[in-house]
């Protein structure tokens, strides 16, 4: 069974952390992953940087620009990760935009992921219908889970469709925004969290966007299975480097 599905069966709320590969330094990838696991993080999203990250706010944009300047590429990331499963056992997901995957070759990319022990992909600009028609078989052939996003504006009908295509978890974007744009949740999010919980979807949901501390983590996971932190973590490594990751994680999930 895929590590993601296994993890989702555990009877606890999950903390997933996103970081941009190649940032702050080109060779930080392995250190960040190992330190995150040691700090008790449940799942990791490894960001493959892209020149034009449409869905990201300034924090992740800047980290992507810097990572590309540092020389990060798909090929280099795969090289860095080749022995990762000797030391790390939590689920690892690659998150990025579709174009670099397309240029690498979708099948070649998936095959490489399987060899390394990557468990899933999140490609926000790969539409669910295109995935279902053209790529689902390839992903499944290489044991990869594809994760799709929903937002407060996504209709119930479309959420049901996304649920039917998914086989892992649903990435629940907390508000209509780019990453890192808003912090904290209001009544609108409460309503949205309740609405989704009441839909009794077959895939568990993990909330992302707007989570930066213990309070927002607790709010997000009241009903959802877990929460994802991206921009706040990038800010932490920007300010403190990669050696105090445990401090950051302790503050979220004591």
């Amino acid at each position, binding site marked *: 069974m895929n590590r993601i599905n296994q993890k989702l069966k555990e009877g606890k709320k999950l903390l997933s952390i996103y970081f941009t590969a190649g940032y702050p330094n080109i060779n930080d990838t392995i250190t960040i992953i190992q330190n995150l696991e040691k700090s008790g993080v449940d799942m990791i999203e490894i960001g493959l940087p892209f020149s034009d*990250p449409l869905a990201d706010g300034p924090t992740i944009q800047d980290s992507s620009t810097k990572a590309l300047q540092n020389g990060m*590429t798909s090929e280099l990331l795969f090289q860095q990760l080749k022995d990762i499963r000797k030391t790390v056992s939590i689920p690892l997901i690659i998150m990025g935009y*579709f174009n670099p995957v*397309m*240029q690498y070759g979708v099948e070649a990319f998936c095959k490489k992921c399987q060899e390394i022990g990557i468990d899933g992909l999140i490609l926000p600009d790969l539409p669910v219908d295109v995935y279902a028609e053209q790529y689902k078989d390839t992903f499944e052939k290489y044991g990869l889970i594809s994760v*799709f996003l929903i937002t407060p*504006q996504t*209709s119930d009908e479309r959420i049901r469709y996304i649920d039917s295509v998914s086989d892992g978890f649903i990435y629940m974007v907390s508000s209509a925004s*780019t990453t890192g744009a808003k912090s904290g949740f209001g009544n609108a999010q409460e309503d949205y969290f309740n609405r989704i919980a009441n839909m009794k979807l077959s895939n568990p949901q993990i909330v992302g966007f707007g989570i930066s501390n213990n309070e927002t983590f607790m709010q997000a996971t009241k009903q959802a299975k877990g929460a994802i932190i991206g921009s706040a973590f990038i800010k932490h490594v920007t300010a403190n480097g990669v050696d105090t990751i445990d401090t950051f994680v302790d503050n979220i999930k004591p």
Partner: protein
Amino acid sequence: MSYNINEKGYYGEFGGAFIPEMLYPNVEELRQNYLKVMAEPLFQEEFNQLLKDYVGRPSPLYFAKRLSEKYNTKVYLKREDLNHTGAHKVNNTIGQILMAKRLGKTRIIAETGAGQHGVATATVCALMGMECIVYMGEIDIARQAPNVARMKMLGAEVRPALSGSRTLKDATNEAIRDWINNPVDTHYIIGSAIGPHPYPDMVTRFQSIISEEIKWQLKEHEGKENPDYVVACIGGGSNAAGTYYHFLDNEDVGIIAVEAAGKGIHSGESAATSALGKEGIIHGCKTLLMQTNDGQITEPYSISAGLDYPGVGPMHSHLYKSGRGEFYSATDDEAMTAGLELAQLEGIIPAIETSHALAIFSHKTFEPNDIVVISLSGRGDKDLQNYIDYFKL
């Protein structure tokens, strides 16, 4: 074979809507409504009225006698430069502002490179009393000061795009991010035949007035509707899409595209996407784009700010790949020379974008009886400083 869009939003293998889920409701709302709205008699009436009384359409189809003599063929110029605001861009912004109103939107965003589309958007927003925010690369703001001033005078807010290379592609990214953050009240007026479906088709349809007029105007001049060739410059490709539209499936009409080769196709400073690009995803559509082997989008170069976009619209990728269109590229030098030539032969100073289309004569020889219609997409007032610097006027 059809060269127009299919029911799924693709031109051949190009097009589609490769967008993050956050944009799906906005784009889907547009997709479900755009054809219906455009078909409404009241919409058509208002659109045509504004094109006539406000834009000044129909734009003349002018027989360029001296240019024809020089190249020993029959050249007609479709005078989009005579439109209000000085280019073809306004055909699309008029259409889209009416669309935005029908969809109940109250806030307009747009991207702009040289500022022409920004000005055309600010103009229609003033006309309709709508809030207008134009994203423009910080570098472009510095080099296109007169258009920035125009937009401000028209009441628009010009927001600098500070990310990436701080030019057109980044302004487009910022506009898309704004739309993600404002999904309910905002309409995004994309300025070229690019973006996720239905944008390329919607923009093309609003610009198709160009080829619609060419047909009946040519009939008046020559007694027949179809020229032998239609020629246009291509950045994203909206004037080209409009110029080709009614001739797409008539293979008796040759389709010619001229891209910007900058300092030479292989100089490393070029915007000749068909020659240098590979299939990929940019700004929500699958098309040809300039990128690294690793799939990072690269920064193009052209002396013309309106052509330095790293992709082309999906219609044009299909025209290129299928062989339906003949693609050429003109260097900065060829374009500037062609622009000067038009000024001196016909008394028309073209936009530098348009000068690229005029440079077709240094790449292709036409027959004496050929009827060649060139889209004169914009006027050169905005480029005067460039012409001054280049020719030391």
